[in-house]
């Protein structure tokens, strides 16, 4: 059970939550607010990009690899790994196809042997005579 003081606190907290909730809800749906926020973040990010570029140039001047160059190497390594797995899969598919082939080939060869057998037997019988 709540005392009178606690009741007031509870009421105050509920009111605060509702007011803040309504206010924030309006704010996140306000196009002007979102637009200004986006522009402000974009400006900060453009500044950060400019600073990163300047840092890259400083690193290059010191003959040291920059983050941009390291990322490029990483991208190349990732591409190589991708290509390697691609080739492995193609090779596996090729091996699977080859393993399936002899069975297909063996069947006609066996049939040919079987077909030739009566002629062979007849020839053998003739020679015996």
């Amino acid at each position, binding site marked *: 059970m*709540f*005392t009178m003081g*606690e009741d007031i*606190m*509870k009421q105050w*907290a*509920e009111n605060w*939550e509702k007011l*803040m*909730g309504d206010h*924030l*809800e309006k704010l*996140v*749906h306000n*196009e002007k607010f*979102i*637009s*200004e926020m*986006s*522009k402000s*973040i*974009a400006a900060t*990010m*453009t500044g*950060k*990009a400019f600073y*990163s570029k300047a840092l890259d140039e400083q690193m290059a001047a010191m003959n040291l690899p920059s*983050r*941009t160059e*390291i*990322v490029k*190497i*990483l*991208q*190349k*390594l*990732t591409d190589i*790994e*991708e290509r390697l*797995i691609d080739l492995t*899969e193609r090779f596996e598919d090729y091996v699977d196809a080859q393993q399936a082939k002899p069975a297909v080939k063996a069947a006609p060869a066996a049939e040919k042997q079987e077909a030739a057998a009566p002629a062979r037997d007849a020839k053998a019988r003739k020679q015996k005579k």
Partner: protein
Amino acid sequence: MKATQEIPEAYREMLSRSVTKSYTESDRHRLGMEPTPKVQVFRQGCWTLYRCGTEFASDYDPVLIIPSLINRNYILDLLPGHSLIEQMKLAGLDVFLIDWGDPDAGMGNYGFDQYVSKWVKRAVRQVKKITGKARVQLAGQCIGGMMATMYAAHPDLREDLSTLFLLTAPLDLADSGLLAQWTATEGFDVDKLTAAFQGLVPAHFFHASFPLLDPKNQLAKYRRLLENFEMPGFKEIWEALDIWGSDNVDFTKQAYTELISTLYQENAFYKGEYMVGGRKVDFKDIDVPILSLVARDDHVFTEKAAFAIHECKAAKKGRLDYHVIPAGHVSLIAAHPVRVHTYTLVREFLTRPEQLRTGAKKK
């Protein structure tokens, strides 16, 4: 609300961990998160393919789950009794799960095309090889659902699939909620916003905006915890969801740019103009049986974004099961009591005999 002196010490500790986001591996163990054992069956770069459970024999086509790129995949296997994967295993399904892991800056040039036409394709290939089955049941959650739809719509890839299961998957992103409104706002220039990032867009950059999608819920979060603190199981699921919500993943710069400019601002996938593996993909061509589950109270996408699935061939042939569930974006599978209904729908669809896959009812 409880009086100050009645607030339990355990609540204060939980509050402190949540506010400071100081969760550790021991918190995950304490709660018993990710209850289903998983075996790694394939790995490339940052992403891994897992086979779930310990018993793999199944009478059904295997299920491959594509999780969202934005969060970790363990929302699908959160806690015992709160796990979609656990339910799939109980239904006798052979379940495979992709873990996108943490992309590195070297993957910055890879967008959705790479994810779908190379990596999901590779995962499908592995599943087919391991199980010996010719076709796979593809499932996708959130953005993963959009990727699964791209796969199912691709003229060369769709032959791999026997069914498609979409969980809160957006397709039509125009007017699809607050995120769509933000990206459509004048001055929202994704190239400028990401100009400073090399390779990756850090998780903290875009996750900072997520609480603003549902501000009222954010404000009520700790009050609700206090009010329900003594309710059996409530604090465990609350904390598990809080851990998941604060465990964020970086985006590759290309995927982020595509998501905002191509998929949101141009709505290219819905219009059938998005290219995967050099081919245009149009979800309207999908002709496999589909289960689409949508959250009524979704704060990320409105129902309209998912409703677009009704425009595909399968829907016109009565092969679409579409359900709107009275829950939130993740609570429909992880928390809300209604999740039991979700589990029933999923189990029933994925184990449905082939001959009964036509003429599914629309809800």
